């Protein structure tokens, strides 16, 4: 098969033709004018945002928008800012037990039953919940990473949060160093937190009688923690991370709105007392995470074990699997989480009247009980990089179902038979996300 003109000339002419093609002025200069100040700002920063909606069956619901912005400096430094808003409303359990008789409670701001502007009654058999719970929160955080050498960096960060009844500030520092061609990273961090608790209706005196409305002033708590972690690249497809951490909080650790049902000898409700928790809590945890991935699939498996000085021991296992479409245009990511915790030493669903004088710490808050919880979720992500001409740009939506099942192993007094004392929790969570 002959190619005209002459074989040897073909390549020369092809080179000439290519040069002619490539020497036409780049179209870019006409089609991509200077982006301007806003354009350049958008190019320099990466944004992530999410709108989450949380709804507990018959209890509280929350809407939470979050926005974060991050900027990389040329030398490996980085600054990132985030804003979170939280709006909660609905019914929140007040810690008392269901009863065969109706129960009446006041709003937290009341000074006595007589003068209370708002009173709520729980029907027989129902879990006592305050139906007018509402809370708003605004939080802001910033982190700044400074490279120290080619292989190590220092991070300084802080956050502040404001709610109607709670103010918090946190400061954190961290140091990380890479070894082995950046295959191993060792990091060490510490944080300190200071909170002011300013409950609606003032702080109830712990263990005082609910009907006495005894109050005291604002409270505070402080905490400090340290974390040590190692991240290791195992193979081209596998990364592992192990963190060990400890923290300790001291001060007012009670939930100011939670009460405990006091039961008389036969099991009838004799009244309520405000809860009381120890004024210090030390927690230790170990966390192991493995990420494995291939061209179109990746999985994240994590395990956490935690113990604390209140007697709570918990185990958490979570697995997430991301499955990309062949074109990597979108993905789905199912996830499952299993959680189990054992109760705090002072957890008790009720207080026997006979023990009232000698009990120093008690709380019926189900979050301190023995329970297991399961989460099932599915996330869908759509890559917008192609459309928006930005890498790491995507739209996501995820839906999760969370269910807590309490395991309280206490003989039920006669007067409380036939009641669903520990209903647990069922919640649905939906989140939309957009990153640019």
């Amino acid at each position: 098969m002959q190619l005209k003109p002459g074989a040897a000339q073909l390549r020369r002419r092809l080179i000439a033709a290519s040069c002619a093609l490539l020497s036409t002025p780049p179209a870019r200069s006409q089609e991509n004018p200077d982006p301007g100040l806003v354009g350049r700002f958008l190019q320099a920063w990466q944004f992530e945002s999410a709108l989450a909606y949380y709804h507990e069956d018959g209890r509280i619901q929350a809407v939470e928008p979050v926005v974060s912005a991050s900027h990389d400096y040329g030398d490996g430094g980085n600054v990132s800012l985030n804003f979170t808003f939280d709006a909660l409303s609905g019914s929140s359990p007040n810690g008392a037990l269901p009863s065969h008789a109706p129960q009446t409670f006041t709003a937290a701001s009341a000074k006595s039953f007589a003068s209370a502007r708002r009173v709520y009654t729980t029907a027989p058999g129902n879990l006592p919940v305050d139906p007018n719970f509402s809370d708003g929160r605004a939080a802001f955080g910033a982190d700044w990473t400074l490279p120290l050498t080619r292989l190590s960096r220092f991070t300084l960060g802080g956050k502040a949060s404001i709610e109607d009844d709670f103010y918090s500030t946190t400061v954190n520092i961290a140091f990380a160093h890479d070894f082995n061609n950046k295959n191993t990273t060792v990091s060490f961090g510490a944080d300190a937190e200071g909170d002011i608790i300013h409950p609606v209706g003032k702080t109830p005196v712990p263990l005082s009688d609910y009907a006495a409305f005894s109050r005291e002033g604002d409270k505070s708590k402080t905490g400090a923690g340290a974390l040590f972690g190692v991240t290791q690249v195992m193979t081209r497809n596998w990364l592992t991370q192990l963190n060990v951490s400890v923290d300790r909080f001291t001060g007012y650790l009670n939930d100011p709105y939670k009460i405990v049902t006091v039961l008389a000898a036969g099991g009838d409700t004799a009244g309520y007392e405000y809860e009381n928790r120890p004024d210090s809590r030390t927690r230790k945890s170990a966390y192991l995470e493995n990420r494995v991935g291939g061209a179109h699939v990746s999985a994240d498996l994590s395990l956490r074990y935690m113990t604390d000085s209140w007697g709570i021991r918990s185990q958490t296992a979570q697995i997430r699997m991301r499955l990309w479409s062949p074109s990597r245009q979108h993905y789905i990511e199912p996830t499952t989480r299993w959680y189990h915790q054992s109760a705090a030493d002072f957890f008790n669903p009720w207080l026997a009247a006979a023990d009232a004088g000698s009990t120093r710490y008690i709380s019926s808050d189900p979050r301190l009980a023995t329970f297991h919880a399961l989460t099932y979720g599915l996330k869908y992500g759509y890559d917008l990089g192609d459309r928006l001409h930005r890498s790491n740009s995507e739209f996501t939506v995820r839906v999760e179902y969370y269910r807590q099942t309490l395991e309280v192993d206490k003989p039920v007094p006669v007067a409380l038979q036939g009641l669903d004392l520990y209903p647990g929790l069922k919640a649905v969570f939906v989140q939309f996300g957009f990153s640019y």
Partner: protein
Amino acid sequence: MACPCEVLVYGDDRAQALSLGTMAAQEAWRVEHKYSRYRDDSVVAWIHGHRGLKCALDVETASLIDFAHRCFELSDGLFDITSGILRRVWKFDGSDRVPEADAVAALLPSIGFDKLQWEPPLLLLPAGMELDFGGIGKEYAVDRAYELLAAQCNVPFLLNFGGDLRTNRPPPQGPWRIGIERPDAEMTAAMLLDLERGALATSGDSRRFLLKASVRYSHILDPRTGWPVVDAPRSVTVAGSSCTEAGLLATLAMLQGAGARAFLEEQGARHWILQ
């Protein structure tokens, strides 16, 4: 581009590497969006929407048509950007569904660059015909992105858009090491080449082919007959000063079928062929 694209930059400045990568990515997207036959906002879609009418092409598109014209002449009709309509009957999905001879023959009257009316900058695409820049689009994108990066910096970099590469200079410790995939086993390089500067383009049938009665039909179709080239090598890699040039030579070599090696030797181009 329908393939993974990467930019390798040698250096210490992460912000510069990110900025070069972004620049290359945006140029790749620009070229792809402008010449994609899948998008309804591309120049190709606009030309297809004006069949039978004279379209005034912009400078870039006009020069691409000029280039395609020259290649059509130099290759005696083997390289033809109007041959895209053959994909209506040829679906290279690894099955044995080879089209009927009549179906292929029916498309031939609508193929042929010489049937276009090209008087720069005016192009008239007759009814029933289609333009497809798939044969040169990727290599052109590499060259365009290369030029933008080369004008911007002096650090060694390598562009790799799905096997079409170009680099400006080697890193200090030696040439870039390029692995050419063995056609049957993904991700295990069959050959390692050293690239110091210039471009490499690979043409191959490892993923798109039909297999019927032990005859392997490569996805490289001869526009003059409408049928695949017989006995084409599994993979041809050619080095050139630009990716467009290397890509054209690789495609033309595949179109020679069994004569690929002889063709490339005649051209004096550095080449590597895997059977």
